[in-house]
């Protein structure tokens, strides 16, 4: 959907501006974020272990890989510090996915060649490639680890997806690990290690959902994604066997953007967000390791810029004002039944009334019948790992608005259903490089998010992706 919007509607920034902006933002997000997954052959080369040790199917971590990550990319033996490595060893890996994909969007408001606004189904297809991740990670010294991921979109424009240093096992305890920089939140269901890559299936809907103000009016004051890497400081602690994990993060409210700018390009507020996550795993005989956990993000977003530049009028970073709150809560379970594993997640979101209605908190009156929007979400993701070389994937997500921002909205405005399935086949497993035949289909239904230009009534959007790719990392 995102790619289609970029290609077909980029000149129609007038009447369908909100939809175009939304689609463009989504496309930009997909191109820059969805492929920033961490499967790092440099680790396999360092320790001489096959990908399948740390990944059930890369990039999805196994419990052993999760413990390795939580221990600061360390095995815990004397081979962790770089001083024990060959001086020629360089902890760098690359990942990119040449692919063929088809994108279809139904019920899409567009402008026809004769200038007439119409609703059409639009399909595009062809060969393509994703952005590239340069994955550099490892230890600077024993118990000091780092992750640096310069990441490009498909045009080669780079940004820093991850930049962090972690002090591990402080006081000789696995309960004291401090990380600073830009990093992925401690999400058990990692979007950076997602097994699906397409435009519609390459991210978790629940992690990025923001309610519509009204049909045709997407959220406008802030951008936040629980799956986005964030800037801040994280304390993380875990038991030696990684069965119990806890973390608390103090974060700048920038959605990971530098220079104190928020995700929509405005000034971030001079505040801090907090993210808390915890989980506990338990053994269930021969079934495997089961894990349950919860997470909560308490965020703030400015509703207007306090100061702007005298030269070009752009907001000065970090001076956003009228901060209003939002939060996301969730519970997650990861259930293993031999080769079958199922991840279940419940999600709840809430935006302050100003954020929900796009109203600046500078004294501007709220719209009539305004409410603080809230919603519930759920996810069930199933994997059947036939063997380390073959994994089948299925995911269904739903989002249901429980409170619309405006009373006049249809009650299901913004509701989402998303289905993704596919499989990945790894022709070889080695300790040097990774390669997967990637196959995926994804479809997303969004209710009443657009306005039919002919009838002026709310309409939904259905978008789908088919993708075949050669996903490789080396």
């Amino acid at each position, binding site marked *: 959907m995102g790619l289609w919007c970029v290609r077909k509607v980029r000149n129609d920034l007038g009447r369908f501006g909100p939809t175009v902006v939304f689609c463009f933002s989504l496309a930009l997000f997909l191109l820059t974020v969805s492929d920033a997954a961490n499967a790092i052959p440099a680790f396999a080369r360092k*320790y*001489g*272990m*096959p990908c*399948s*040790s740390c990944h059930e199917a890369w990039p999805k971590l*196994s*419990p*052993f890989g*999760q*413990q390795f990550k939580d221990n600061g990319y360390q*095995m*815990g*033996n*004397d*081979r962790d*510090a770089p*001083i024990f490595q060959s001086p020629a060893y360089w902890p760098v890996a690359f990942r990119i996915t040449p692919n063929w994909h088809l994108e279809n969007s139904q019920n899409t408001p567009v402008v026809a060649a004769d200038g007439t606004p119409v609703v059409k189904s639009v399909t595009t297809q062809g060969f393509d490639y994703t952005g590239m991740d340069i994955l550099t990670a490892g230890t600077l*010294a*024993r*118990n000091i680890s780092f992750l640096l991921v310069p990441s490009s979109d498909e045009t080669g424009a780079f940004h820093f997806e991850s930049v962090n240093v972690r002090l591990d096992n402080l006081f000789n305890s696995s309960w004291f690990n401090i990380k600073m920089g830009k990093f992925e939140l401690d999400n058990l269901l990692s979007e950076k290690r997602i097994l699906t890559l397409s435009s519609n299936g390459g991210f978790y809907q629940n992690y990025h959902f923001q309610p519509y103000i009204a049909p045709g009016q997407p959220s406008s004051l802030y951008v936040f994604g629980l799956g986005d890497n964030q800037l801040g400081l994280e304390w993380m602690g875990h038991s*030696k*066997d*990684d069965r119990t994990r806890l973390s608390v993060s103090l974060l700048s409210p920038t959605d990971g953007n530098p220079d104190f700018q928020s995700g929509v390009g405005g000034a971030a507020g001079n505040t801090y967000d907090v993210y808390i996550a915890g989980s506990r795993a338990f*053994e269930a*005989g*021969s079934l*495997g*390791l089961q894990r349950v956990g919860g997470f909560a993000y308490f965020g703030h977003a400015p509703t207007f810029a306090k100061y702007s530049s005298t030269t070009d009028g752009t907001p000065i970073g970090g001076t956003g004002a009228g901060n209003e709150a939002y939060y996301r809560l969730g519970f997650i379970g990861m259930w293993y039944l031999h080769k079958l594993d199922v991840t279940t997640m419940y999600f709840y979101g809430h935006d302050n009334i100003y954020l929900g209605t796009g109203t600046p908190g500078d004294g501007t009156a709220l719209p009539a019948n305004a409410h603080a929007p809230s919603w519930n979400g759920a996810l069930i993701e199933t994997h059947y790992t036939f*063997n*380390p070389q073959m994994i089948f994937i299925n995911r269904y997500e739903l989002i249901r608005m429980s409170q619309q921002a405006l009373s006049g909205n249809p009650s299901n405005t913004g509701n989402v259903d998303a289905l993704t399935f596919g499989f990945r086949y790894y022709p070889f497993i*080695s*300790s040097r490089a990774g390669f997967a035949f990637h196959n995926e289909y994804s479809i997303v239904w969004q209710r009443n998010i657009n306005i039919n230009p002919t009838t002026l009534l709310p309409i939904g959007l259905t978008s789908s992706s088919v993708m075949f790719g050669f996903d490789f990392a080396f």
Partner: protein
Amino acid sequence: MQNNVHSKFCLNIAIALLLPLGIAAQQADQPAAKPNPHMESHIGDLTGHSEAGARLYYRYCWGCHGARGNGDGENAPYVTPQPRNFTQATFKCRSTPTGTLPLDSDLYNSLVRGFNFTNMPSWIALTAQERADLVAFIKTFSARWVTEKPGTPIPIPAEPKLTVESIKHGGELFQKLECWKCHGQEGRGDGPSAPTLTDSNDQPIRPYNFTTDNRSKCGRTNQDLYRIFMTGLDGTPMPSFADVVKPEDAWDLVHYLRTLQYNNPSPELTLWEGTPEGKTIVAAKKVENTNTGSGVKP
């Protein structure tokens, strides 16, 4: 009569000559013992199954230990010391006497602990059942698990009270048993024999350096240390001293070895540093105020 005696004598000679040939022929007809592809392991209440262990082995282990368990995985050429060859069923860390098979729990504990100073990590992130399954599968690589039974664990008597005399006596034993020839006078693993040592695969092997860590390959407790030199580390030059060291002497040796680990606080080191002699010796070994921050202890 004489003929009878003569006949019996000849018959006995014939039997004596032919019997070995018959036995040899019989043995030649018997097939050599083969590994059992269906093995179980028993660790406490856990029963491991080799079929389940195979799936885990070919996910986690084969890169080093090889598809056939003979230590020739694709990464083996780059690993020092070389990965264990399971077809030999020779294991360093055992609770059983030298030359015997270990208990299932010995192998299980090795998976939990990992081996410091090698590429073998701790597999504590796996479930207990998965580790038991892996132990069962590892046993399918050698026929020894079919033809032999694990040895009887050596007894470990209660640790006697720690005294300065015990430490000093342990130091005398360290000299008398010539531990220093491999481990060095200060326990740095740099004794005169150290450069010549090889393991059972003719690969160079370095004696344990007591000064770097308090984690030996087979565990970090005093009981683990005691067990190591009473069982020996099979496949390495480290022999078993069970026949030459009395239990009380072995404990004295344990107490002395702890004082060599002068970078790791222990009751033995504290007691030893509390004596003028010990304080002088330990202080002489330490290199302080280097401000390198390298984490590599001198």
